[in-house]
């Protein structure tokens, strides 16, 4: 196995996630794309940890997993609040703070 095959897979997942964040309109789908990005980062952390033969990569991946769980919780709470106030989670309609 090469180190690069994991890094390329992670780069691809990251770019797909970036596309999703930019192109999706639904708030829940944007949060799913953010999960793709965070998972790409986790693959990189664990791959470099295995490459350098240290468990620090795994430890940081675990921290990222914990923080991703917290982020999804808060993010979905915000999406729910937006839905309750506006009866829509279309992110392109939320322009109250546009100058």
């Amino acid at each position, binding site marked *: *196995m*090469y*180190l*690069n095959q*994991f*890094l*390329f*897979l992670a*780069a*691809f*997942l*990251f*770019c*797909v*996630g*970036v*596309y*999703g964040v*930019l*192109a*999706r*309109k*639904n708030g*829940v*789908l944007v*949060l*799913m794309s953010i*999960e*793709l990005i965070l*998972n790409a980062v*986790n*693959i990189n952390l*664990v791959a470099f*940890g*295995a*490459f350098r033969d240290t*468990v*620090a*990569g*795994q*430890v940081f*991946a*675990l*921290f990222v*997993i*914990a*923080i991703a*769980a*917290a982020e*999804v*919780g*808060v993010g*979905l*709470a915000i*999406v*729910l*609040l937006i*839905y309750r106030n506006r009866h829509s*989670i279309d*992110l392109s309609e939320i322009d109250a703070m546009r100058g």
Partner: protein
Amino acid sequence: MQAENVAFGIIAAAMCVAAIRVVTTKNIVHAALYLVVVLGGVGMNFILLGAEFTAVTQLIVYIGAVVVLFLFGIFLTRAPIGRSADLDNDQRWLALLTSVMLLGVLVFVLEDAFGNDKLVIEQPQTSAEVGNSIFQTFVIPFEVVSVLLLAALIGAIVIARRD
């Protein structure tokens, strides 16, 4: 060595297809289910890399909790269960251009930096090593993460509560 590469190829192909479907499908529930394939594939990659504890945590936390949370979010926002036409905004082609260019830059840089670094996994990193590392070297970040989780939990309840 060969079996690992075959397994990686199959898993990576499935993950790439599923990831693209997550961001292109017209059905929100299907997007959540394709996300399960991607997250499970990431867990299998962790096993290939000899990170058993992280792999199991990935399966429990992501597939067990996060995807269920997403499905709750979909149902609570009363998203259409079937196909819906307007899930993408009008900057789709610009977004595609951005991500393809980003992918090009990343692939070029990674090939340049780690082009022929072989990954040799002699033995998996055991859960005992991970535990020792968390509770010795990284004990302060660990405590900070637990406080952060508590804060996020309370924050999510406060935000989503009806009053």
